[in-house]
């Protein structure tokens, strides 16, 4: 049983995988704009639930809890803020890490609390796009690795 991928094909695929996975991508510095979001937290949801900024932006999140105490913890940045009902709490930071980051409630707010989530997008989600490229290559490898 021989694998149908020739040595050259394997080398090319390997190079393509390395290229897609590791190729440096120029980060578009859109300047350090001030971005402020008023995020309402209530009934296990954030509104808005998806925040998009550019890398380098100075971000301020004004968290407003509309029913009970809620928190907001940004994964990847490891930053947290919590707000009492009817109060506004502020979290400011520089969005110096690109990608997509889930944020979730950090204060027990009820049964669905562990699944109260939102998303912070800082520039393009290159991890996603690189992985899409790698998935295409995975399909090529999967189909190409045919045994005769």
């Amino acid at each position: 049983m021989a694998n149908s991928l020739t040595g050259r094909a394997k080398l090319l695929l390997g190079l393509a995988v390395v290229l897609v996975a590791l190729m440096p991508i120029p980060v578009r510095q859109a300047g350090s704009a001030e971005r402020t979001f008023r995020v309402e937290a209530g009934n296990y949801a954030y509104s808005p639930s998806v925040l998009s900024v550019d890398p380098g932006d100075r971000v301020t999140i004004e968290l407003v809890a509309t029913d009970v105490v809620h928190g907001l913890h940004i994964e990847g940045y490891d930053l947290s803020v919590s707000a009492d009902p009817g109060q506004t709490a502020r979290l400011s930071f520089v969005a110096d890490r690109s990608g997509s980051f889930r944020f979730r409630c950090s204060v027990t707010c009820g049964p669905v609390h562990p699944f109260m989530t939102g998303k912070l997008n800082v520039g393009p989600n290159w991890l996603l796009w690189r992985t899409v490229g790698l998935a295409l290559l995975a399909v090529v490898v999967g189909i190409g690795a045919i045994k005769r």
Partner: protein
Amino acid sequence: MNGLDLAGLPVVKPMLRSRWPQLLVTVLALGGFVLAIVAGLSGTPVGNRNFSIVVVWIAWWALLILVAVPLLGRGWCSVCPIPAPGEWLQRGAVLGPRRARLGLGRRWPRRLRNIWLQNAAFLLVVLFAAVVLTQPLVTGLLLLSLVLLAGSMSLVFERRAFCRYMCPVGGFIGLYSQLAPLELRVKDTAICAAHRVKTCYTGNADGYGCPWQVFPAGLRKNTNCGLCMECVRTCPYDNIAINLRSFGADLHRPGERRLDEAYKAFIMLGSALVYAAVMLGPWGWLKSVAYAVGGWHWFVYAVAFLVGVLVLLPTAFYLAVRLGHALARSESEPQRSFLHLAYALVPLGLSAWIAFSLGFVFANLSYVWPAVSDPMGWGWNLVGTAGIPWTPYVSRVVPLLQVTVLLAGLTWSVRVAREIAAQVVVGRSTTRAAGLVLPLAGFMFVITILFLWLLV
């Protein structure tokens, strides 16, 4: 590839033959299970402060889907506490075999000897998942119902009918156990053929006949072997091996493929997709709808979920198979190809569940320490860990792990599809096989992209 026989190792063999190690783990698990039921029924209604929710749906689930199923297959089933009380009643013993047994010992109905009931039971749990996973009382009631159902079935039917045909968890463990690098098989089938008594099935003074109603010499895949080790104990010829093998070896056995299992692959893949959207997605309205059990919004959600998982997903896959047939100019029956090729979704399905689980397990794992110290959420501090605050673990690494697992699952599934295509549809023509697999790979690619979009 059959590798090392673990049962032949001098250190391991006595541990497998003895009932004590297995019993100890089962009793420990049963203790945790009982505590989960008690905490669920009488502890705090706050899920992330209640032992039942935290230990069952975070700690146990993490161990099951991230470790036990991928590496040990049905390893969990060998120590699962759910059927234990019923089995002890049925056997009239906790340890060795006794003559006196309780129960009617009826055979499971022939027409139900498949996993359709398990598919239905799993779907039922998934439909109510938003409530089951967050409300301790519901989790407590579910666990109690499972142990009562398993016990009742043990008293009416022979052996482990519950595990084999009813358990909502056992169905998918069986499906994914085909991927595990571990298998229980006989060493030499000729010895079994010549052995007239078949003590592995009937039992003897050293052990019980196979509780899973399997004749070990007929085992070709892991799906129905509960790794209970009874056959290791009852075989007088030491003819049972626990082999280390290559991952996914069972997926290459064309004679063992069934529609109920094929559908399980779709159910698992679709459920993981819905779970990822509902529980990890940013859409609060979707969580509210899934949580509002009984309301008309929930009914719409339930119908959409069932149609999506049971109709749309299989139909899309079937259309991909038909397209592949056209590209490969295959004259095989598309329905037959559909059945066989659906098994190619098994690696992608498990990787999707692992990727989804990584997304919430590490974020919520720190809830375990307070829950262990204060299982009821009543302000106790039994082991001094009640005050440990919530801290998401390795949140920067989790997305990388998720994409790695999904890519591995996609690659593996495409390769399995290619091998199955060559095996049962288009023969040795590599060009035709590639033509057949191309639309299926496209299907898998789209599913993977959906998961990536939801999870990272």
